[in-house]
Each structure stands twice: as C-alpha cells, then as structure tokens.
C-alpha cells in the first residue's frame, strides 16, 4: 500500500478533531514522518511507522504506528504534563477502535496499545514529547 495514504489518513483525522484543535490550535501542526519541518511551533505532532509487515500471499499488512505529540516546557524548564496528557488522551480517543477510511483499503483493526511520556531528548531541550503506539491491520478491499 502507499504509505503516504496511510499517514495522510492519520494527519487529516487529527487536523479535523475539534478537541485537538482547541488544545493545540487550528490548524493543527501535524506532520507525516518522524521529522518536523524547519521553523515548526509546538504543540506539534508526527506520525510514522517503524515497520509495516506485509503478509506473504495476501494483501494484508500489519504493524505499529507511532503518533508523537511535542509540547514546549514551562518557563521553569519542566514538562507541561497537563497539556501533553490531554493531547495524548485526545489522540487515543480519536483512533482507538476507530478505523481509518482509506480509499481501496479496509482497516479492520486499529487499537491503541501504549501511551508513553513525557519523554525528553537533550537535542531538543525546550520541549518534551509523548507517544501513542497503535497496532494496525489493513487489507486491500
């Protein structure tokens, strides 16, 4: 399958979600792939899959999707867990057991399996991030 169609489906759903809009601003800064563009502002989001397994002799693919939410620290330097927690909850509610609609494909399973955060990367010291892990199963319709 075209991975861009898959990532687009996630990004569009996040951008249309009113709860995410009210927390993160409209338009929602959601990006396909693990990197954000130069000059991004937080809150921001990325969607990527480390590995999508294509089952031999079928049209089925299954794997893991990570949706990351990035939030600026408080001025005191600690993580803004209030906002991060709310964003992770809204992402979970948006996608858990609510399959994607992708033209030509049937997403028969989409389940949140893990919420992680706040996580810290010293190369981006002014922010923390959280990650929503999803299991996805998809077949050609």
């Amino acid at each position, binding site marked *: 399958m075209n991975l861009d169609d898959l990532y687009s489906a996630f990004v569009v759903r996040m951008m249309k979600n009113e709860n995410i809009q009210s927390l993160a601003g409209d338009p929602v800064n959601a990006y396909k*792939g*693990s*990197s954000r563009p130069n000059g991004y502002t937080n809150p921001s989001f990325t969607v*990527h899959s*480390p*590995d*999508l*397994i294509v*089952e031999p002799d*079928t*049209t*089925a693919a*299954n*794997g*893991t999707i*990570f949706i*990351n939410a990035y939030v600026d620290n408080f001025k005191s330097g600690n993580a803004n867990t209030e906002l991060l927690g709310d964003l992770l909850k809204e992402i979970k509610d948006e996608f858990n057991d609510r399959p994607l609609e992708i033209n030509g494909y*049937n997403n*028969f399973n989409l389940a949140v399996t893990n919420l*992680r955060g706040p*996580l810290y*990367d010293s190369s981006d010291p002014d922010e923390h*991030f959280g*990650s929503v*892990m999803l299991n996805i199963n998809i*077949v*050609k*319709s």
Partner: protein
Amino acid sequence: MEVDAQLVNAEAVISGMEWLTKAQANQVKEFMEWLMTEMYEHARSAGNYQDVTGALRDSLSINADNVKVYSTAAEARSQLQRNQKPVIRIERDEYTGVLWAGMWYAFLVELKAGFTVITGTVDHFNNLIEGFMMDKLDANKLAYEGIKSYKDSM
C-alpha cells in the same frame, strides 16, 4: 435418575497427567527460548538504524534476569554474553520472554528518529506467536481461523 461414577486406577491416571503437564510446560519453555533467540537475531539484523559504534545492537537482551540501561558501548558489551542467553520468567503458568534494548537512547531511535529497534521484530513475529498459541488452545483456534478466512475473503 442417578449415575454412579468410579475412577478406575486413579493414582496412575493422575501421575500420568502430571507427567503430561510437566512435558507441556517444558515444551512451552523450550518454544519460548527458541522464539526469543530468533527474535534476538532478527532484531540484530533487521534494525534499520545506523549503528556507528555497534552499541545499540550489542545492548539488545533476551535475558529476563538482565534488563539494564547502559550509558556506554563498553557497558553494553560487557553484558553481551549474558544478554544473548534466552532466560524466560516463569510465574505459575505464565511464561514471559523479554526483548530489550539497553542503550539509554534506544527509545529516541525508535520513537523520534523513526527507525525500528525492536518494535518491527515484535510485529514480524506477531503472527507466528498468535498461530502457535492459538493452535495450543482449540477454542481460540476457531477465532484464528475466522480471522484468517476473513482476511482471505478480502
């Protein structure tokens, strides 16, 4: 109506069942050790990240008794032999295998940089694990076959 039932040769039957139970438990343990070894090899070879020092690959562990976080490649390498040995945690009838990446930055490589460290391996082996476990349980096998037929019909 009344039914009388009598278990003939009960002790022999029970001791036979104990032997069977032990044999099955050993099979599960052996399978788990084999599975974890295969997953370890897969994770070492399939990780698509650039491992300049080799530390991340060397920090992988399938030893449930040796789950540690390392800050240097030397620390990870000092545990390489122990970490390559599959050690399964057994509590009552629960068998737990561990696939662990020990370098402190492993989560950043997977979650932030977007490479697969261990998640891809878990996904890759998921079908195998499901197939094996559901074959052991007839009740679930129906569900498995149901899913398979559903997939085949798509």
